[in-house]
């Protein structure tokens, strides 16, 4: 069974319907809200599989279905659905991971009093993400994009009674909004330049050769191609959403939301949206690549931003103590990898890593959620420990996820996708700096993940809560097992044959990977693992307050990294200060200049009123009083005609009618 | 949910409807004139007069004492005692009428009768074309043999008969004691 493209809207519509049901359900209807949400996701998953079958029938074709949304008079705003392997794989991933996260939430949020609201928001989130994926129009994509932002705001601030959660929600919303401004500008510019926002429209879409050529050949005064400028503006949006280097600050703070939300944001939906956007408009990004006389290429910027983000995220993750925060920075780092891959020209590798990362990062977050749930919301890994015994399923699945993320060779899907990225970076002919950044990040990733597992699961429990932890019910562990299985099985997408790459981009020729590079990366991973084990696994800390061995060795660097490279402080000192100054200036202007003017006018009015009143009291009022006395006396006489006798009125009406007709007839008035 | 009760009720009537065709035991009625429900022994309505021998009128137990006539609440009994040529009252009813249309089957006549001469019947099909002729029963219609009484109320009749024979025996004993000086010849012949 296949799903034809004009019915593609059903995939986002189903979770949206579930969200509506959840919104309309009173807080008592937990079963209804949850079952609607999960049923909608399962149905969307089935539909996505049908869509995948349809898309794989001809991987090169971009199946589209466009329709007019409204008519502007001079032109029409058109929307549409797009079905190609990229869309289909994303749909399958989002709905599959989403379903598991929903099921997990059943257990995790079981005791929360706002259960129905939570599922409503989750469904909205999933619907918005699926809307991004199936859209064939940058406009609809933008609308869904903003809906994702809204839903993330609602979910991060789900426990809004906690001030940190409220602040984190606000931070996420405002930070991503900065990037979205770039996206909006890019979109408007694109519309101005091309008159359409459809990606594919039978030759007229913005991603099709005619449009790309037109955008590329025109240049700006500073020498940039128009396509480069638009691409970079749109890239701003992706930077904000995917937590890339300058705007990554919201992502770790988003951990204040419930853990399933973190999993959903970091694995399947929100951060993937940025990478997906860039992969979707890759033809546009790439348009300027073969023009060598341009000062800068869009993809180069992307590659460097990605490389910086990858390294920075990995570095900060080393010095964090909160489980979810470590995972958050690892997400930042992995997203940097994906951007790097796109930047070096292999968007296929990026999407491959996006898919594998979705699974094992969801696994890691849900595992972390399982740990946190079991340990009564204790998130500091210094206070945990010794959980491998009581929480065997969680431990084993978490270990699988950790090894996939660290890139342990051959068996785990993370290895293959990371290899694909490193190979692409190696093959890039502009610069090898991203490759070195990436390799460094590989070492660090293996290192901090080893630390995380060692601190959390080995040794003895270092707090009362950790001591009491026990395994969670099946509704939480079964999704973990499924995800762990997927984290391993997804290797089959790339090995023994690069099947996924072929499906996504049949033209791409994948050169046989350099064996030496693979060996190098295996060695680096082993190095990271070994270092982590040496520092943390071998010398287990005995109590929560014992100092970190790394902090003991490099205290200043460790403090700097633990403070997340002081980004928040930096932003507060620069942008915050600047905006405070501007606000003070505006306040002063308002208070004294405009306020003074208004006050002056008011005083004038007051004075005028005073004069007017004096004139009124003596001159006009007397006259009016006399007139109204007369009117009253006349009214009293007239009111005697109102007898209250309905018959009388009716009679007069009848007589009046007769007189009128007689007048008309006798007077000959026609 | 709304409506389930209605469906359950419909099922019940449908079951009865279908069942009444297949399961004759379900039917609560019988086809009356052809089939009759056996009447319980203690069923009673309308009084009748008990007689002993073959001649109904001659062997009535009734002695025309008129106690029942006096006690009857709806006053449906009319008795005239028989007199001989001299006008002396004989202990026999000349007229014994009961207006069945008026009788309310209260059994008071039976309770008060000292001679066990009037008893309750079980015959209820008394419809008639004329209420003056058909429903005013005379002694000829009222008289029924003791064997009939034994048939319809066996237990009760046995008790009555035992009592009567015991009484007769006692009376006979008294009489034989008295009969030494003067044997009574006027006493009616003992009942069969």
């Amino acid at each position, binding site marked *: 069974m296949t799903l034809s493209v004009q019915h593609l809207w059903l995939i986002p519509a189903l979770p949206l319907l579930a969200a509506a049901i959840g919104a309309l359900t009173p807080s008592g209807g937990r079963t209804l809200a949850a079952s609607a949400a999960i049923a909608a996701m399962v149905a969307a998953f089935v539909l996505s599989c049908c869509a995948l079958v349809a898309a794989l029938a001809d991987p090169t074709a971009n199946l589209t279905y466009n329709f007019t949304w409204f008519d502007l008079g001079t032109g029409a705003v058109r929307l549409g659905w797009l079905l190609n392997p990229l869309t289909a794989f994303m749909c399958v991933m989002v709905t599959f991971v989403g379903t598991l996260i929903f099921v997990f939430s059943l257990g995790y949020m079981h005791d929360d009093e706002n259960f129905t609201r939570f599922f409503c928001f989750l469904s909205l989130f999933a619907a918005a993400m699926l809307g991004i994926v199936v859209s064939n129009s940058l406009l609809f994509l933008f609308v869904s994009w903003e809906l994702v932002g809204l839903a993330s705001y609602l979910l991060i601030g789900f426990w809004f009674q906690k001030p940190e959660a409220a602040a984190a929600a606000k931070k996420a919303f405002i930070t991503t909004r900065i990037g979205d401004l770039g996206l909006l500008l890019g979109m408007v510019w694109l519309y101005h330049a091309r008159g359409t926002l459809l990606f594919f429209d039978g030759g007229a879409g913005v991603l099709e050769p005619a449009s790309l050529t037109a955008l590329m050949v025109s240049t700006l005064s500073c020498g940039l191609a128009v396509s480069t400028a638009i691409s970079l503006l749109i890239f701003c949006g992706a930077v904000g959403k995917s937590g890339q280097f300058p705007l990554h600050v919201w992502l770790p703070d988003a951990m204040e939301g419930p853990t399933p939300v973190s999993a959903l944001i970091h694995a399947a939906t929100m951060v993937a949206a940025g990478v997906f956007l860039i992969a979707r408009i890759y033809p546009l990004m790439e348009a300027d690549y073969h023009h060598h006389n341009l000062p800068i290429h869009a993809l180069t910027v992307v590659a460097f931003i990605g490389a910086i983000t990858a390294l920075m995220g990995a570095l900060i993750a080393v010095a964090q103590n909160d489980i979810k925060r470590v995972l958050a920075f690892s997400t930042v780092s992995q997203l940097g990898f994906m951007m790097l891959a796109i930047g070096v020209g292999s968007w296929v590798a990026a999407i491959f890593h996006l898919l594998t990362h979705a699974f094992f990062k969801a696994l890691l977050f849900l595992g972390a959620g399982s740990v946190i749930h079991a340990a009564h919301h204790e998130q500091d890994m210094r206070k945990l420990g010794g959980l491998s015994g009581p929480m065997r399923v969680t431990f084993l699945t978490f270990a699988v996820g950790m090894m996939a993320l660290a890139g342990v060779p051959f068996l785990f899907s993370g290895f293959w996708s990371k290899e694909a990225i490193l190979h692409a970076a190696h093959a890039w002919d502009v610069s090898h700096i991203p490759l070195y950044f990436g390799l460094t990040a590989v070492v660090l990733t293996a290192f901090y993940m080893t630390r995380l597992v060692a601190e959390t699961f080995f040794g003895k429990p270092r707090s009362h809560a950790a001591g009491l932890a026990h395994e969670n019910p099946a509704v939480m562990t079964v999704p973990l097992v499924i995800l762990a299985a997927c984290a391993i099985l997804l290797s089959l997408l790339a090995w023994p044959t690069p099947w996924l790459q072929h499906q996504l981009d049949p033209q791409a020729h994948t050169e046989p990977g350099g064996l030496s590079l693979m060996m190098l990366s295996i060695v680096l991973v082993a190095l990271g693992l070994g270092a982590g084990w040496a520092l943390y696994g071998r010398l287990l800390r005995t109590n929560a307050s014992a100092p970190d061995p790394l902090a003991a060795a490099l205290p200043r660097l460790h403090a700097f990294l633990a403070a997340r490279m002081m980004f928040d402080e930096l932003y507060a000192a620069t942008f915050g200060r600047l905006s405070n100054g501007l606000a003070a200036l505006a306040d002063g202007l308002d208070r004294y200049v405009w306020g003074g003017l208004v006050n002056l006018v008011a005083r004038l009015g007051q004075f005028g009123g005073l004069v007017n009143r004096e004139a009124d009291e003596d001159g006009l009022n007397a006259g009016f009083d006399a007139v109204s006395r007369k009117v009253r006396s006349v009214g009293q006489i007239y009111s005697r005609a109102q007898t209250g006798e309905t018959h009388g009125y009716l*009679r007069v009406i009848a007589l009046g009618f007769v007189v009128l*007709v007689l007048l008309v*007839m006798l007077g000959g008035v026609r | 949910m709304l409506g389930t009760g209605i469906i359950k009720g419909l099922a019940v009537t449908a079951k009865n409807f279908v069942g009444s065709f297949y399961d004759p035991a379900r039917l609560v009625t019988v086809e009356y004139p052809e089939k009759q429900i056996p009447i319980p022994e203690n069923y009673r309505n309308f009084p009748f007069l008990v007689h002993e021998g073959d001649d109904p009128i001659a062997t009535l137990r009734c002695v025309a004492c008129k106690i029942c006539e006096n006690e009857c609440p709806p006053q449906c009994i009319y008795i005239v005692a028989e007199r001989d040529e001299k006008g002396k009252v004989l202990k026999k009813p000349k007229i014994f009428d009961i207006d069945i249309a008026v009788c309310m089957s209260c059994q008071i006549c039976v309770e008060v009768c000292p001679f066990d001469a009037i008893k309750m019947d079980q015959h209820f099909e008394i419809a008639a074309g004329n209420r003056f002729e058909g429903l005013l029963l005379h002694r000829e219609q009222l008289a029924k043999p003791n064997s009939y009484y034994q048939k319809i109320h066996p237990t009760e009749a046995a008790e009555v008969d035992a009592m009567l024979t015991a009484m007769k025996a006692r009376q006979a004993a008294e009489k034989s004691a008295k009969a030494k000086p003067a044997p009574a010849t006027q006493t009616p012949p003992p009942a069969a």
Partner: protein
Amino acid sequence: MTAALILIALLILGSTAVAMSLRNLIHSALLLVLSWMGIAAFYLWAGAEFVAFAQVLVYAGAVSMIVLFAVLLTRRSRADLSIAPASLRRAVAGVLAGGATAGVLTLAVLRTNLQIAPSAAPTVTVQQLGLELIGPQVASVLVVGVILTVALLGAVVLAASDRNDGKEDAP
């Protein structure tokens, strides 16, 4: 054709006149139902069958019921039904006003030169009517709908008793 019209006219006018002069309210109301049926017959005569059935449904079916209900609800004994005769002055005034109007109208009708165009009635199917109603006249339909709704609510509010004595399901 004209004979049928005159028959219908006699039915309408006769029953109406009798209804308006009877003392018994119930008889008046029932005679008015007859008169409304006569009007429906007039519509049928003129070829407007949809309107005729609507007239029967609305007047004989609904308005008459409300009228009868109102009559029965606003009396305290059976004697109330035969109402006191109108005072002579009022009756004369009423009939005079009515007569004057009638005279004027008759004059007006007779003196106007009215043309008759078609010999056969214009045919309007129900479907045409429906399309007309939801097409060009849709605003009016909506307004009438609002009027009816408001009238229903208003009637309920007006007729509802303020007192709330007795629970509905008291045991």
